[in-house]
């Protein structure tokens, strides 16, 4: 019997989750603190008939991942802030041409080379808005090693079924944290694939508007001989500058995430019934918040936690509803940056409750005590 309990690092769990979900191509470039993802992929992919390649730079690895996915193979890359910036142009291509792919971004201190070995959460906005133009993208934010495993599986599945790039956004703490993971906690299920084009070759339109807004993808060799371009394209796949066709083309790629929102959104709440103060946090900051909530509840303070697991698109209805249900008079957003997540929280709450901030940019994780102190002050 195969042992399903494993001691894994977050980065390792991402790699193993991707392979479990059927990822068979990885292209990467060394960068701290994500390199372990590439190292595990280099070791494991050849054992399952997959391909690993270390490319000449971050841009090339993103290009190779998109190229492999165009060929009909599930593909992933991993990086950290500066490398994530370099990947953004090709990431935009994947958004525009709707090529499934997964990008693991392990956040470190920035800007620039910053503090490469220290944790941060400074890419919350880069993950959403890093590439240019109007685009749809999904960002998942695991807060444990088990979740790094299960959310990477979900990333591959969402990317495939929705034809959209998915970012798995870890912070350095989660990436390098070792925890015991039960691999069997993710139930066995049939492998999830994109819908490949079938049917007549004649008159085939690679970007036809379907009911679910996700056009089946032509696979080279299947006889469709389609064109794929980063230029704004008509349903036939070729460039267009006809105003209404261009509008419809871009709008469909963003609408599809709205259409499938229920499948995409994921969040967790802890002690959110009857809270005077609701904490909103992701990643390791949410782990600290979880402990702070326990400590403060033990003191008799009414405090709860809302944790977006899907960071983008932000589970906005769920947050508004949680705030309303709990009766929270304010929310507190602890994050390892100067305030990014709080901007979205403020937008979503639109004055329903003030959003208080707690920020660290010193390369140290936010501690439960940091949060508890700030919460006590707020509840005074």
């Amino acid at each position, binding site marked *: 019997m195969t042992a399903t309990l494993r001691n894994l690092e977050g980065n*390792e769990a991402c*790699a*193993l989750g991707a*392979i*479990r979900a059927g990822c*068979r*191509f990885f*292209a990467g470039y060394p960068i701290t603190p994500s390199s372990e993802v590439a190292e*595990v992929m280099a*070791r*494991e992919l*050849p*054992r*399952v*008939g997959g*391909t690993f*390649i270390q*490319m*000449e*730079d971050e*841009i*090339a*690895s*993103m*290009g*190779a*991942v*998109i*190229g*492999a*996915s*165009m*060929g*009909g*193979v599930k*593909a992933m890359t991993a990086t950290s802030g500066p490398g994530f910036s370099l990947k953004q*142009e*090709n990431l935009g*291509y994947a958004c525009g041409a709707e090529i499934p792919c997964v990008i693991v971004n392990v956040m470190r201190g920035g800007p620039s080379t910053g503090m490469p070995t220290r944790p941060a959460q400074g890419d919350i906005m880069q993950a959403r808005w890093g590439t240019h133009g109007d685009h749809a993208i999904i960002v998942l934010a695991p807060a444990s090693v088990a979740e790094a495993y299960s959310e990477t599986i979900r990333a591959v599945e969402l990317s495939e079924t929705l034809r959209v790039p998915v970012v798995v956004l870890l912070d350095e703490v989660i990436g390098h944290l070792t925890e015991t993971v039960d691999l069997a906690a993710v139930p066995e299920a049939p492998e999830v694939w994109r819908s490949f084009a079938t049917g007549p070759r004649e008159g085939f339109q690679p970007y036809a508007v379907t009911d679910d807004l996700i056009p089946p993808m*032509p696979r*080279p*060799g*299947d*006889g*469709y*001989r*389609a*064109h*794929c*371009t*980063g*230029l704004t394209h008509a349903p036939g796949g*070729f*460039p267009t500058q006809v105003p209404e066709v261009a509008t419809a083309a871009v709008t469909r790629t963003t609408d599809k995430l709205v259409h499938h929102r229920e499948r995409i959104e994921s969040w967790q709440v802890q002690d959110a019934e009857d809270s005077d103060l609701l904490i909103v946090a992701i990643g390791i900051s949410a782990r600290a918040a979880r402990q702070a909530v326990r400590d403060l509840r033990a003191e008799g303070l009414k405090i709860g936690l809302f944790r977006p697991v899907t960071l983008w698109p932000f589970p906005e209805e769920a947050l508004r509803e949680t705030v309303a249900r709990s009766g929270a008079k304010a929310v507190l957003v602890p994050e390892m940056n100067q305030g990014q997540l709080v901007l979205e929280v403020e937008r979503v709450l639109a004055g329903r409750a003030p959003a208080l901030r707690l920020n660290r940019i010193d390369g140290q994780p936010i501690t439960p005590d940091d949060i508890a102190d700030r919460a006590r002050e707020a509840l005074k």
Partner: protein
Amino acid sequence: MKDTADATAFDVNDWIRQDQMPHFLCPGCGHGIALRALVWALHEQGIDKDKLAVVSGIGCSGRLSAYIDANTFHTTHGRPLTFATGLKLARPDLTVVVITGDGDCLAIGGNHLIHAARRNLDITCVMLNNEIYGMTGGQVSPTTSGGRYTSTTPMGNSEPTFDACALATAAGAGFVGREVTMQVLALRDLLKQALAHPGFSFVEVLSDCTEIYGRKNDLGASPEMMLAKKSEMRPFAYRNTVDVPFRPNHLRTGVIARNDRPEYGAAYRTMAAGLHGEKGDA
């Protein structure tokens, strides 16, 4: 090599997406000749269109992929070799051809060219060199000849030029060749050899940009520009007498280098075959 098709007769219309005609190239542009030579070579090599992937970058050359009746991918500026690398590794059963330009391949994409050549993955890279950024309005490129006027060299170009073939050769490309658009049949035959080579093949096509580069430098119409290019050719037999990294006054054409280094994809798969099925951590 024979000048006529041996198997079935070549008809360019069989390879061109008729619904994408007329093409957008300027009158006199050499890229159309290169495109014809390429699909002619593909035809004579018996390449199956369903198994053909053409990957292009950005620029005038980048738009050519849309005209070929195959699986075509118009990617990002300078990066078609990276997309092609992923595609070929994921799908070794496909014939992968890259169409790129001098700016795409040697400036923004220069890093990818040297590593693709070093890696020696089985991709045929066709670089159309018209010495200019035509699509963006005529800016200087890494191959713009000395003294030439462009929109960003109003005093004349004072930068030395890249010899793309010397670069690809030095980086280890399995097959390297150069031809001018004036010699269509020689170009076709060079491309056939490139397609047949199991490894990274690099072919530089000396094309002409009549409308922008020619006009700006008073080089005459397309026939004059093509004749001038032809006169700059250096006989193939003298190929080893000029060996400097920067372009000499006379260019060498034909097959410039070839080697039988292992093809990367096959080498990876051979090594992986020993591990396949072995119990790992995944």
